[in-house]
């Protein structure tokens, strides 16, 4: 009750020093300024998602638009497609390999850099360096490094591993694992930066308290630091997971679909179906599927963000 009596008075002194009609109020100006962006986001993101979903339910599978409604026909065709099954398998391979490498190495390097290292800035710069280059550049470089007859295999041969000569990303079935090495080469620095910022945010007293309680280095990390860094790990999972769903440029530059679709991805399948084979409705079904898949990551992430903004 007391607040409702107070608030009008406060409002007149601070928010409205001079009374103006509502159509000239600053709040209206603020809304006008943001309206074009709202319209753009509404059309180009939400409208387009709805539109794509709609296209996935029509018969448009040639160069000529055909909006005859066919229900779930494209979806059923997609779910029965062998290439789709391979792509899902590849997504699992890629997500597992990429996410674990980024998170494990990102965390490890961050912890090492947090040990009052001389030249920390130089180490940090080098580890994040690959994040400044594009997926195409990464792919071109790693395609050369993963040539079976040279590149890394040459290094293996030099250290006496002449018999260990993997065919990397051109391995049927398992080529995707090789792609994740290149992918995490590029992305680990980002995750490392997140963990390093997280570590720097942990108050020193907490570590001291753990040390006083007799916790060794290992126990401190296991029971204090890693649990405290869970929000960072959550962010890292979302970012790497999103990247796994949409990976396209790196794979294009490294190997394309690869032998027996060994390195094919949903993004690649979508692109070729749509812009190569003009199967727009099938492409739209794949695109919608990718949006749905990413929803599982985006929705919890934004919920946690919302909690944070409301605080």
């Amino acid at each position, binding site marked *: 009750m007391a607040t409702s009596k107070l608030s009008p008075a406060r409002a007149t002194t601070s928010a409205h*020093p001079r009374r103006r009609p509502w159509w000239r109020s*600053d*709040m209206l*100006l*603020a809304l006008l*300024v943001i309206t074009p*962006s709202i319209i*753009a*986001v509404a059309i*180009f*993101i*939400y*409208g*387009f*998602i709805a*539109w*794509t979903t709609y296209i996935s339910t029509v018969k448009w599978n040639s160069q000529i638009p055909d909006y005859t409604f066919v229900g779930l026909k494209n979806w059923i065709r997609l779910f029965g497609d062998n290439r789709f099954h391979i792509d899902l398998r590849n997504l699992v391979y890629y997500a597992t390999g990429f996410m674990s490498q980024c998170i494990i*190495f990102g965390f490890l390097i961050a912890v*090492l850099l947090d040990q009052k290292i001389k030249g920390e800035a130089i*180490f940090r*710069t*080098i580890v*994040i360096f690959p994040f*400044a*280059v*594009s997926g*195409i*550049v990464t792919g*071109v*470089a790693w*395609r*050369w490094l993963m040539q079976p007859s*040279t*590149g890394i295999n*040459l*290094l293996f041969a030099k250290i006496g591993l002449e018999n260990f000569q993997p065919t990397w990303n051109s391995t049927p079935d398992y080529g995707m694992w090789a792609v994740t090495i290149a992918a995490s*080469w590029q992305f680990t620095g*980002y995750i490392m*930066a*997140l963990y390093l910022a997280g570590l720097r945010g942990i108050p020193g007293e907490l570590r001291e308290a753990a040390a006083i309680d007799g916790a060794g280095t290992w126990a401190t990390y296991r029971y204090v630091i890693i649990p405290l860094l869970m929000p960072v790990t959550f*962010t890292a999972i979302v970012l790497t997971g999103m990247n796994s*769903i949409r990976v*396209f*440029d790196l794979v*294009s*530059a490294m190997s394309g679909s690869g032998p027996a679709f060994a390195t094919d991805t949903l993004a690649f399948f*979508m*692109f070729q179906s*749509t*812009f190569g084979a003009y199967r727009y409705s099938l492409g739209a079904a*794949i*695109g*919608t599927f*990718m*949006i749905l898949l990413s929803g599982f990551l985006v929705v919890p*992430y*934004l919920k946690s*963000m*919302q909690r944070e*903004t409301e605080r």
Partner: protein
Amino acid sequence: MNLQRLWTRGAIYLVLLAFCAFYLMPFYVMIITSLKPYVDVNVTRMWELPTSIYLGGIVDAWTRVSPNFWNSVQITVPAALISSFIGSMNGYVFAKWRFKGADTLFILFLVGMFLPYQGILIPLVLTLQKIGLYGTMTGLIMVHCIFGIPITALLFRGYYASIPNELIDAAKIDGCGFFGIYRWILLPISMPAFAVVLLWQFTSIWNDFLIGLVVLSTPVKAPINVAVQNIAGSWSVEWNVQMAAALIAAAPTVIVYLLLGKLFMRGLLAGALKG
């Protein structure tokens, strides 16, 4: 105790150096390969330094991709500038003019930051064709600006939220309106935020492949990364030329990163962590 400490310290540096070697390895290979003539790009001597510096590969790559390099400059610079400006206005509204539903709207904006573009490509192409911007630089710039709305709003909102409301209220009492507050209070102290956002947008637009490929795929008009992929995709182009082309595509963002690494870090963190 002391000896053990020495061992651990030594081990830490050793591991860090090993990681650095791994992260630098592809750059090393790209650079030495691009400086060799094709006859020396030999599978058995891939890791060896060139016997003499040969610039032919780089010249060849530059003649192939320089039109696309300039295309990318013409796309990236305006797109980064315009989207930073839009972002700063949106961030200002979200942070300081908290209308009803602003927070929900902000979250709805952020969704656009994460979505796989495959889910919107087909309508995007259809729309651009309809309004006559398909296959044009203007169209691509527009698309980058629109897709940049979420991240730029996020970065600027975070920055402006840290500016005390008392400052805004004082300006209101002095008679400043919506634009007055922006022009006289926020804009003069926005330069650090502009630097971070410009850098972020510059890097991600320059490094874009998918949208450029879809909207502007004609070889003469295509941005640099599309051109590099075309070169890498054709087996007739020698490795040294491919590596040189990749280096040319990487150069602007790498140089910017080396010069402004701190700002880059700030963008990385702000873009992922809180709102």
